[in-house]
């Protein structure tokens, strides 16, 4: 930014002037290479690609107008690493290091498309050039993710050029705090962190609360395993979160903000810190912002690796330097939160929606979605679907469209069994409810919840009792131990589930689980405990027959629970190669060479080695 000669802005006019200057300095013919640095692509080595592109740009000389930039998650992680060439939006997928030179020579310099790296639409068999022609993107509607894939998250000038901080300027130019809150109320925006509490109402209560100073916090703890929406926003467009917080702070009357980021996300911390520093340098964060009387400072804290710290009161305890134990919420945090002062906490995605609502109006936002759930929601679509990745869809879309049209259906031609939403305390939705719409109330009715946006798709080979056990185990480990129902109740539930998956379940165990679940819901201190039985209750509701098969027949229908199924060799498929025989640690396999082998069930320890090693998939689970 310094190379553009931006200094601290002391007025709105200066910000606008800079935007114009930035836009003018970009010639229409200049090329730009967008390398995705979302978590999926980074895991597949995209930083290295970025470096190679940078070297190519450098080597191309000054008469070629081209820049390489790292951008936030494009969403189509399954097909990463993703590289997009602008102008034209040519979308290359599964790019590897040797491809860089070809892309640079052909597309950047030559203006020709490298067919080989394009996405092939499985429905038509045709190669597709642009992202918006790919089925995965067609159904999506991007608001919170609109800057992802477009902006360089490390450069504030990119954000400004694309209209960043105009919402802040609009608020300061001037809207009254009251008007800002009314606009957010009008939008119908509800918290994206899980609870779905109306954001405008929360802001109003905090504004009206007595006491000062007031605090504004961004919840970037994203504790739900299987979810990475917030990570991709923090890393892909950190300024949208900062701008949202600035607007919220202005409306509420706060001068101090915190962003609490999950410990496992070091890159989020780095990008947010960098973004705050850049915004400070330009006078967009700090004292007398844009020459107004409004001041707001932001600090970034790292979590310590505790799931419960995503809960609002636990998060505040953690920010105060204490163990993250929640407290009962008969006094709301908007009245007495961080350090006993009025505190407004919102989720990352909630904050990222705010600048759009201010810019385009609450009415526009309220025009998207269902009656009670407005706008869009970002989901991380993962598990056994063909297209895993990050998707943003209008509220009200059916689960079926998300899984079939965007997700491309179930992987490896298997059958769909359930989709788990709402994080560890969410629930599993079976096939018969796939036409349910994505909406806070509707998902709750089905025994799951919106949660923060994890959407984990499971196929027929997933044992639902084990899924319930996994979440119960997770929550039992993450329970802070402060209240007895959660600490002891979950341990009991886990004990029963363990016994069921070991084939030692007893008649009446299902009822015992239900009873414990009711107890937790009614008596636990915080939402972690109150909802902790959800995975168990929802799987009992929809997959009771699987529980029964484990308990009554000693059989695991999905063939996942060791001991509740057998291995057998299919004599048709076995050609007697002897690999299983050699590898069996229990010497339980016999057979002559070239003659189908047999497993001696008495000796078999069910270790599964033969099943893993057989090159002809002749070992079956029965």
């Amino acid at each position: 930014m310094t190379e553009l000669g931006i200094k601290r802005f002391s007025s709105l006019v200066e910000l606008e002037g800079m935007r114009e200057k930035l836009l003018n300095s970009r010639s229409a013919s200049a090329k730009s290479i967008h390398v995705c640095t979302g978590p999926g692509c980074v895991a597949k080595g995209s930083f290295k690609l970025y470096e190679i592109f940078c070297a190519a740009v450098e080597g191309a000389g000054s008469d070629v107008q081209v820049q390489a930039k790292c951008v936030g998650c494009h969403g189509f992680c399954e097909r990463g690493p993703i590289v997009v060439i602008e102008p034209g939006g040519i979308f290359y997928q599964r790019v590897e290091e040797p491809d860089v030179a070809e892309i640079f020579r052909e597309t950047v310099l030559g203006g020709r498309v490298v067919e080989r790296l394009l996405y092939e639409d499985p429905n038509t068999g045709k190669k597709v050039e642009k992202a918006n022609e790919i089925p995965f993107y067609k159904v999506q509607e991007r608001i919170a993710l609109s800057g992802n894939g477009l902006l360089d998250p490390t450069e504030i000038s990119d954000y400004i050029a694309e209209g960043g901080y105009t919402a802040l300027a609009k608020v300061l130019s001037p809207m009254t705090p009251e008007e800002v809150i009314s606009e957010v109320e009008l939008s119908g925006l509800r918290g994206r962190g899980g609870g779905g509490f109306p954001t405008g109402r929360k802001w109003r209560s905090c504004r009206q609360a007595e006491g000062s100073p007031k605090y504004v916090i961004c919840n970037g703890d994203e504790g739900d395993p299987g979810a990475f929406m917030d990570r991709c926003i923090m890393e892909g467009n950190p300024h949208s979160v900062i701008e949202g917080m600035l607007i919220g702070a202005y409306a509420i009357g706060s001068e101090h903000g915190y962003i609490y980021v999950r410990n496992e996300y070091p890159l989020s911390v780095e990008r947010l810190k960098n973004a705050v520093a850049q915004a400070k340098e330009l006078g967009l964060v700090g004292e007398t912002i844009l020459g107004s009387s409004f001041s707001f400072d932001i600090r970034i804290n790292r979590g310590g690796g505790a799931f419960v710290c995503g809960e609002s009161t636990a998060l505040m305890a953690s920010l105060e330097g204490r163990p993250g134990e929640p407290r009962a919420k008969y006094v709301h945090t908007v009245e007495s939160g961080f350090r006993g002062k009025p505190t407004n906490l919102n989720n990352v995605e909630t904050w990222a929606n705010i600048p759009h609502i201010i810019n385009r109006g609450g009415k526009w936002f309220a025009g998207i979605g269902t009656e009670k759930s407005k706008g869009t929601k970002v989901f991380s679509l993962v598990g056994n679907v063909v297209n895993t990745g990050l998707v943003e869809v209008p509220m009200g879309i059916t689960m079926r469209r998300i899984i079939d049209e965007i997700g491309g259906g179930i992987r490896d031609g298997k059958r769909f069994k359930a989709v788990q939403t709402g994080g560890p305390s969410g629930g599993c939705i079976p096939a018969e409810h796939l036409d349910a719409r994505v909406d806070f109330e509707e998902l709750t009715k089905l025994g799951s919840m919106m949660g923060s946006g994890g959407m984990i798709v499971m196929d027929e080979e997933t044992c639902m009792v084990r899924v319930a056990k996994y979440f119960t185990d997770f929550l039992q480990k993450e329970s802070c131990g402060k209240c007895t129902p959660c600490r002891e109740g979950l341990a009991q539930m886990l004990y029963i589930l363990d016994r069921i998956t070991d084939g030692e379940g007893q008649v009446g165990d299902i009822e015992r689980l239900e009873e414990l679940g009711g107890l937790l819901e009614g008596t636990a201190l915080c939402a972690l405990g109150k909802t902790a039985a959800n995975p168990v209750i929802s799987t009992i509701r929809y997959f009771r027959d699987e529980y029964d098969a484990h308990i009554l027949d000693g059989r695991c229908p999905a063939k996942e629970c060791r001991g509740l199924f057998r291995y057998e060799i299919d004599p048709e498929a076995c050609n007697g190669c002897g690999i299983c025989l050699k590898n069996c640690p229990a010497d339980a396999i016999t057979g002559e060479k070239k003659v189908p082998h047999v497993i001696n069930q008495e000796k078999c320890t069910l270790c599964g080695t033969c099943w893993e090693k057989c090159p002809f998939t002749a070992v079956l689970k029965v």
Partner: protein
Amino acid sequence: MPEDSEIIEQIVDRYDGDDGMLIPMMQDLQAESGYLPADQLRCLGRHLRLPLSRLYAVATFYSSFRLAPKGAHEVTLCMGTVCYLKGSASISEAITREFQVEPGGTTRDRLFSFQAVNCMGACAVAPVMTVDGKYYNGVSPASALEILYGLTKEHVTADKEEQT
């Protein structure tokens, strides 16, 4: 040690001595020392006028704090839902079996510390493992072991270089 108290003073100053910033201070301290030695915690407590029990409570509540020295490498395996469904439990078992190290522990030769975490936010390419911050996606028990055996070799060559 005088150096210790110097480091601690610097860290305390970084946060203006605000005891609300205890967790970031302890994170910084751990980044310096690799773990939280009891002496240093005691010293930090004295600076902040906080009892050791308070620091200990924090250190044991949060899973990212370590009270024992770590290994030469840091291996983190994701046990989040998606990675779990795609088989990370068997990867963990394989590592435990081959290297005699449980999640949360360090191998006896201090070659690596083994952590299990609940999702690294890269679920789209599960199962995920990192070694010293470098991501490996779509790992299997066999490929995980191969990566870790690679560490053994590097470690040995590094040792040899040191000797010569």
